[in-house]
């Protein structure tokens, strides 16, 4: 009898709200620091655009909060034994915002269109894609429409992170008729299959999205999402305090204060993301073509002043090149530790005891208060071992030009992974085929490293592949090519009433890349 009563009680609890009910409705008030330049997946290159595109479009595959690939538009996929052919089976009945049903032909059209866009590297692994990227062909033979719900993608050679590329927003599927009819205007009048549609875009003011009732996963929980465009971080903070934003970022220099402020109890969310802030060298040019000098600089830098002082402990202390949040980042990798005596010894070995004979080094960095303060700190720390830094601040466009063309000898340049795989850091940044704007701005050439990276890139996912990357990472650190200062984190303010906002390492405040269809308001 007691057992029956307990079961009845449990049933009653469930019935009356023992499990949280999903409450649809409401408007999420988010914020961006700049206007998205383009809402066309083929044309966007920035995270603000990506944050909107991810709500308006879907991809074949999605990454969950733990960065595991999950079904998106494709309900399942199969990989051939030689790891070169991926066969995706689409969900039946997926609707575009224009009411038409999605087919495999849309996938082929979208990928070929995007390969001619601004992020062609997402598709370059497909058989025949380079010809489309170079505009010498219209079709990618590596994309085959098997039937209306099946598409087969063939790679030139195995590439373990390929599924991540299929989850990237450049791989979003667009309807041919709208993309062709609208042309360039598709960037302002996007049509996708996503959980939200674009309702209004008031330039430099706000982007308003509305729930798409016919989304293949069902209507999203929110009615509407409004992204305000607020360039000044202190204004975003004031707006959040005034209650006009539901999510925002924590302004630089306010992290510790906000964390200890009782008014923000339950609002603060800090989580690691897939980025590393680093100092790089042009290793082709003197003086940093000498690894002893690179290592002397590395040993002279104490990053704790940056992590604990300037950034108030709200970032991740340095480990290797790969951010710890990246799946596969090894714990055993170590870079040059802060050791002034060793830095002095290395300078002496290089024939420059106490920096004598070493001309002043120009350190380039892009304009930001934080970069300025870090540069001044580095200048003071290097002076201790006799290295003189001259600081050169340029805005981003000017900075990236001197860095890409190799005229900066020592410079700040971080990296944020586009997808969660070591290949996206190590191969992009250190393979000799990527020298310059493609990522290897250190202009590092090492045939042995190239060989190891080529092997690792083609290996099947698993511990052996990760071990190969670990070996590369350690050798690069030992060679002093790259000095990690710290790893990035996302520092966000999220109202306790906002439920279901994923804190993925790919997502960084204020531009949350998380799927907002999962969000609800209490």
């Amino acid at each position, binding site marked *: 009898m007691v057992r029956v009563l307990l079961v009845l009680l449990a049933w009653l609890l469930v019935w009356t709200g023992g499990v949280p009910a999903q409450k649809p409705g409401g408007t999420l008030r988010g914020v961006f620091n700049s206007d998205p*330049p383009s809402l066309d997946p083929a044309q966007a290159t920035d995270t603000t655009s990506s944050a909107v595109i991810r709500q308006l479009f879907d991809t074949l595959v999605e990454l969950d909060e733990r960065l595991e690939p999950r079904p998106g538009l494709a309900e399942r996929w199969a990989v051939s034994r030689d790891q070169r052919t991926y066969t995706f089976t689409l969900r039946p009945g997926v609707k575009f915002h224009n009411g038409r049903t999605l087919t495999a032909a849309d996938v082929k059209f979208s990928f070929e269109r995007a390969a001619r866009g601004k992020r*062609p590297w997402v598709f370059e692994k497909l058989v025949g894609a380079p010809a489309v990227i170079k505009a010498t062909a219209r079709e990618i033979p590596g994309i085959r429409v098997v039937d209306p719900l099946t598409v087969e993608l063939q790679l030139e050679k195995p590439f373990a992170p390929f599924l991540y590329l299929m989850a990237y927003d450049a791989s979003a599927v667009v309807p041919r008729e709208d993309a062709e009819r609208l042309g360039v205007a598709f960037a302002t009048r996007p049509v996708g299959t996503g959980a939200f549609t674009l309702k209004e875009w008031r330039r*430099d*003011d706000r982007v308003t999205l509305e729930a798409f009732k016919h989304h293949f996963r069902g209507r999203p929980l929110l009615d509407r999402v409004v992204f305000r465009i607020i360039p000044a971080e202190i204004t975003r903070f004031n707006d959040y305090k005034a209650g006009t934003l539901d999510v925002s970022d924590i302004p630089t220099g306010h992290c510790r204060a906000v964390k200890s402020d009782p008014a923000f109890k339950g609002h603060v969310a800090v989580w690691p993301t897939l980025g590393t802030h680093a100092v790089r060298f042009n290793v082709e040019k003197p003086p940093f073509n000498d690894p002893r000098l690179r290592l002397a600089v590395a040993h002279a830098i104490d990053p704790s002043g940056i992590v604990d002082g300037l950034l108030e402990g709200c970032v991740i202390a340095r480990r290797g090149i790969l951010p710890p949040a990246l799946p596969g980042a090894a714990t055993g990798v170590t870079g040059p530790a802060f050791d002034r005596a060793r830095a002095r010894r290395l300078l002496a070995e290089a024939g420059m005891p106490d920096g004598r004979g070493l001309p002043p080094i120009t350190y380039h960095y892009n304009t930001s208060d934080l970069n300025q303060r870090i540069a001044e700190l580095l200048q003071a720390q290097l002076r201790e071992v006799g290295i003189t830094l001259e600081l050169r601040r340029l805005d981003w*466009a000017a900075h990236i030009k001197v860095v890409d063309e190799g005229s900066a000898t020592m410079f700040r340049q971080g*990296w944020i992974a586009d997808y969660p795989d070591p290949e996206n850091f190590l191969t992009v940044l250190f393979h000799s085929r990527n020298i310059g704007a493609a990522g290897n701005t250190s202009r590092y050439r090492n045939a042995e490293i190239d060989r190891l990276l080529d092997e690792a890139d083609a290996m099947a996912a698993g511990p052996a592949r990760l071990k190969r990357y670990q070996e590369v990472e350690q050798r690069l650190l030992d060679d002093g090519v790259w000095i990690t200062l710290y790893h990035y984190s996302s520092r966000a303010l999220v109202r306790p009433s906002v439920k279901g906002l994923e804190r993925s390492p790919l997502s960084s405040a204020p531009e949350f890349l998380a799927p907002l269809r999962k969000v609800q308001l209490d």
Partner: protein
Amino acid sequence: MLRDLAEPALRRCLALVPVLLGVSLLVFAMTAVALGDPARAMLGQRADPQVVEQIRREYALDEPLYVRYLTWMGRLVRGDLGMSYHQQRPVAEVIAERLPATARLALAATLVSVAAGLVAGVLAALRPGSALDHLLMGAALLGISTPVFWLGMMLALAFAVWLGWLPVSGYGDGSWAHLVLPALTLGAIHAGTIARMARSSLLEVIGQDYIQAARAKGLSEPLVVVKHALRNALIPVVSVIGIGLADLLVGAPLTETVFAWPGLGRMLVAGVGQRDLPVVMGAVLVFAVIYVVANLLVDLAYLVIDPRIRRAR
């Protein structure tokens, strides 16, 4: 009187052509020669060299500078400001979207600065050396010397965050509430200058014989000041208002940034950062036209205010 006004107006309009030519040449050269490649700036952290080249060809960035300038001028003559590199839309459309917001802010800020400046200047001039005079002129000095960015933040903190009377930022649906803080911030730059100029100009006029004569006739002091003194004291004040428009234009990008106001100033700042040359050129041209036209209106105002200038012509 209309004939008197038409000739200088025409002359000023003709003078606009070389001014705009000079401004456009200067800005084009500065922006294009400055370090940075618009194609590379467009592509984020990972740029495919082929795509960079493709964009450079698409936007004729591989052409010599003079060819690019002449092409741009050729289009301008036909009323075409070109395409934004970053937004891939006509610059005229980009500017047209933001011009109303900037015009609204500039107009409101001018009203604030003229009203506050004139009232403070007149009150101070009526009691020179008094505590009120010192207080108002002190406030004017503070207004002139306070950085726009800081003043904006303080006003937002006080009236929006603490008191909750006004919105922190944004354009809203065009409501007046959203306009108050940006207009006060931008207007404050110039109100101080107008107040100081109005005070000194009025004091000079008040000391003149015809004012003594008006007083001797038994006219009340407010009537003497407003009807007889102020009109003559206005000439230098109107000059300051015209020149002060430049301050408003300089202050607009900062004010628009602090208050997330979707105007031309913010667009110009973003355009420079993105090396979006057509947008920068378009915005600078609009600013130059506004400045020249405002000064033309000031010149015309002289003619209306002071008949002696009309007669002298």
